[in-house]
């Protein structure tokens, strides 16, 4: 009951929604860079939101299924094919033992999520299946997938038996991907410490995502952001989407594999609902930060969660018809 890895792809690792409750010990959260695509993929195969998916980066893997099951691929369009026949993202797909899943060019986005009905059977470390690459723990043997790996799949499945395959997640719930360049954000705790010019530049000018960007954080290039005067900031927690500015003036947007704490001034906090856009952005892409209030950010978060609950209920209903 497994999936054979014929080719690993650029960086393919198991991720769920993160390893919480251990940040006080310095253990990072990890988890999917695009929690929306991750969640959608899980819901399409009848899994709970928090089940692990395979996070695929730019160049996809080649996999052979050792079982009959259902899968879904959401997020980046890396032109997936099953037995050399093109398949689509955002759908439930039936696969048979011996089927081969491959990926081609990247047509849109950066990260795709492959969910399998019942989930990957790797066990949890500290409550999570997410791979913590630097500490070599969690996920599949604490590392990214390699050629020749055999990834176990929960043999009991999850009792999911879809009755129709002629539908997909419509564009409406994933409308945030339409405007990839506008990243909504709220002022950070240290926003007022920056010069007036830097404050204006941050919310008006374009920033380019640098090649020094990975699961830990994205560096952004643009107008140099400066403090009015140098100030010692005591280390304190940082979050997914915290934008901090080291002394050389280039902002860093912290992503899924961020450290738990940081000592650089925080200029902004990216709205949770816009993190999927960043997860799908590539080095060289331009972004503009648009200011929203903290209350707006929280309400958007709540609305997105409610929409995902509707989607979950909708998928259940569809498969009962």
């Amino acid at each position, binding site marked *: 009951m497994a999936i054979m890895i014929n080719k690993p792809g650029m960086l393919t690792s198991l991720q769920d929604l993160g390893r*919480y409750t251990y*940040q006080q010990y310095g253990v990072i959260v990890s988890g999917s860079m695009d929690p929306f695509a991750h969640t959608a993929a899980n819901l399409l195969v009848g899994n709970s939101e928090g089940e692990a998916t395979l996070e695929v980066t730019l160049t996809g893997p080649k996999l052979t299924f050792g079982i009959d099951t259902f899968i879904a691929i959401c997020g980046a369009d890396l032109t997936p094919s099953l037995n050399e026949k093109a398949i689509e993202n955002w759908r439930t797909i039936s696969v048979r033992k011996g089927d081969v899943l491959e990926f081609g060019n990247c047509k849109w986005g950066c990260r795709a999520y492959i969910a399998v009905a019942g989930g990957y059977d790797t066990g949890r470390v500290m409550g999570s299946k997410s791979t913590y690459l*630097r500490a070599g723990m969690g996920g599949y043997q604490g590392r990214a997938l390699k050629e020749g790996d055999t990834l176990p799949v929960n043999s009991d499945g999850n009792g999911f038996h879809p009755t129709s395959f002629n539908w997909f997640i419509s564009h409406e719930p994933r409308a945030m991907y339409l405007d990839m360049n506008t990243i909504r954000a709220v002022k950070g705790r240290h926003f007022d410490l920056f010069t007036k010019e830097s404050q204006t530049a941050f919310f008006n000018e374009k920033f380019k995502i640098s090649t020094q960007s990975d699961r830990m954080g994205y560096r952004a290039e643009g107008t140099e952001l400066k403090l009015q005067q140098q100030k010692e900031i*005591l280390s304190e*927690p940082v979050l997914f989407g*915290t934008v901090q500015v080291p002394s050389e003036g280039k902002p860093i947007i912290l992503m899924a594999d961020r450290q*738990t704490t940081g000592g650089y001034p925080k200029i902004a906090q990216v709205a949770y609902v816009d993190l999927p856009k960043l997860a799908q952005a590539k080095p060289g892409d331009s972004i503009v930060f648009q200011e929203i209030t903290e209350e707006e*950010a929280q309400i958007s978060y709540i609305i997105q969660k409610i929409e995902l609950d509707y989607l979950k209920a909708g998928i259940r209903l569809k498969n009962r018809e």
Partner: protein
Amino acid sequence: MFQEIKYYRFGEAGILLEFGDGISVDMNQQIHNISRWLNENPFDGFIETVPAYNTLTVLYDPMKFAHPEKSAFELAKNRVKMRMESMPKEEASSRHVIKIPVCYGSDFGPDLENVAKLNSLSPEEVIKIHTENTYYVYMLGFAPGFPFLGGMSSRISAPRLSSPRLSIPKGSVGIAGKQTGIYPIETPGGWQLIGRTPLELFRPSLNPPTLIEAGDQVKFYEITLEEYHSWEADHGHND
């Protein structure tokens, strides 16, 4: 008792409590006492706390506080305040002293000579000063189980390396500015390395998963290379 605390929103699911401006052991202990109390007496929707020098961040599930008219943040903040008010007054401070054996110098501490030279001391004097003090653990961060220690003598301070090492072996004990610390996992880093401990600071299968906890005290003592190796042989390989 809690009047001076300022409450800030932090992301969609966080509340940052700020207790004051500077670094103080008393304030920091208060933060860890509250942190422990909240973890032992969680409210519905509580996720976790992240204590730091002068702040405590409480993470919560906004869906548990979603309300058609009221702000989820305000509701969650009130819940945290209520929990804190029910905290017993007596200080439950059981500060452990964790003793850390360190093999100083040689391959384990390639910067020991440099730290000595910078401070016009002999390597032996650096070791004596480093093992003399008891250090207070303000917080864990940077890497799992990495303690932010206070209390190092400025007589052995040393700047960060101008170009960080790509890989620092786990167990390395280093100095950066007026701080000393221990690397629990292999990671890049710019601290000047003076020695290494055979102890496992991060142990994911145990609860708690770290040898040192915030609020503890740490004392270093010197061991020889032979003692280091026999420690490893007794406790499994530290590779």
